[in-house]
């Protein structure tokens, strides 16, 4: 089960409003390579992993990704806070305001709502871990793009933190893959 801790994993600083950036950050909030996708993917795949190491790792990284999802929501919330409806409309967020006001709704940068179609859980541990490693790389690349899109030092620091997390997660998934492959090597036959 999950327990919530009333604290962010990282202290998020946002120095000024930036509606364009809020829109771009939605990619990591409700888009295909978002923290939400990562979290749901890992927490879903963990049920059918064959080793304790991978069950533990997917649970723990999946939980950490939820904390990252909260960090992205915090950035968006702070970037939009106190902005007038007129400014929202001028920044192209009129449609978002019409349906959601300033709510941080899980959709991508174009307003497409999040869907489980963004994730896969094949039940094959090798396949699933390759998907997880690819997901971490996609997230890292997206963070690199986002870092280039802003010059707010608070946002840049937070994005750099999140980007480094993806590098570390990739390493862990790679180690889990090695572990699974060793397990497969030790079995001459497998049962379906």
């Amino acid at each position, binding site marked *: 089960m999950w327990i919530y801790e009333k604290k*962010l994993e990282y202290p998020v600083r946002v120095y000024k409003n930036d509606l364009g950036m809020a829109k771009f950050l939605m990619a990591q909030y409700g888009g295909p390579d978002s923290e939400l996708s990562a979290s749901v993917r890992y927490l879903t795949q963990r049920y059918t992993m064959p080793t304790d*190491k991978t069950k533990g790792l997917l649970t723990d990284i999946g939980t950490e990704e939820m904390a990252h999802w909260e960090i992205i929501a915090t950035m968006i*919330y702070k970037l939009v806070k106190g902005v007038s409806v007129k400014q929202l409309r001028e920044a192209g967020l009129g449609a978002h305001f019409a349906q959601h006001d300033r709510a941080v709704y899980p959709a991508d940068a174009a307003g497409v709502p999040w869907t489980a179609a963004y994730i896969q859980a094949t039940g094959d541990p090798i396949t699933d871990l390759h998907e997880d490693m690819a997901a971490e790389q996609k997230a890292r690349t997206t963070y690199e793009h986002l870092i280039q899109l802003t010059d707010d030092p608070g946002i840049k620091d937070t994005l750099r933190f999140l980007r480094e997390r993806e590098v570390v997660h990739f390493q862990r998934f790679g180690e889990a893959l090695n572990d699974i492959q060793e397990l497969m090597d030790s079995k001459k036959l497998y049962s379906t």
Partner: protein
Amino acid sequence: MDERLSMLKEIQSLEFFAIELNLFLDTHPGDRAALRDFYSVRDKLLVAKKRYEEIYGPLMVFGHTPVKCPWPWIEGPWPWEIEYE
């Protein structure tokens, strides 16, 4: 708010340390050096959390920390509202 923020930052740093060691231990469960460092950071983390919670209220609910009346869990600021420095 300064004192509160610096205590919170210390907890964030120590807990992040524990998270990193946790992930490392998930794939290296027999690593004694990592486990030793995990215990040492955990001790510091629990002390820091206890000090913070005594003044500012609980960080975790569902029975994880002692509370008082009025129910402090719901008190702001909530994490996304805090102005970090």
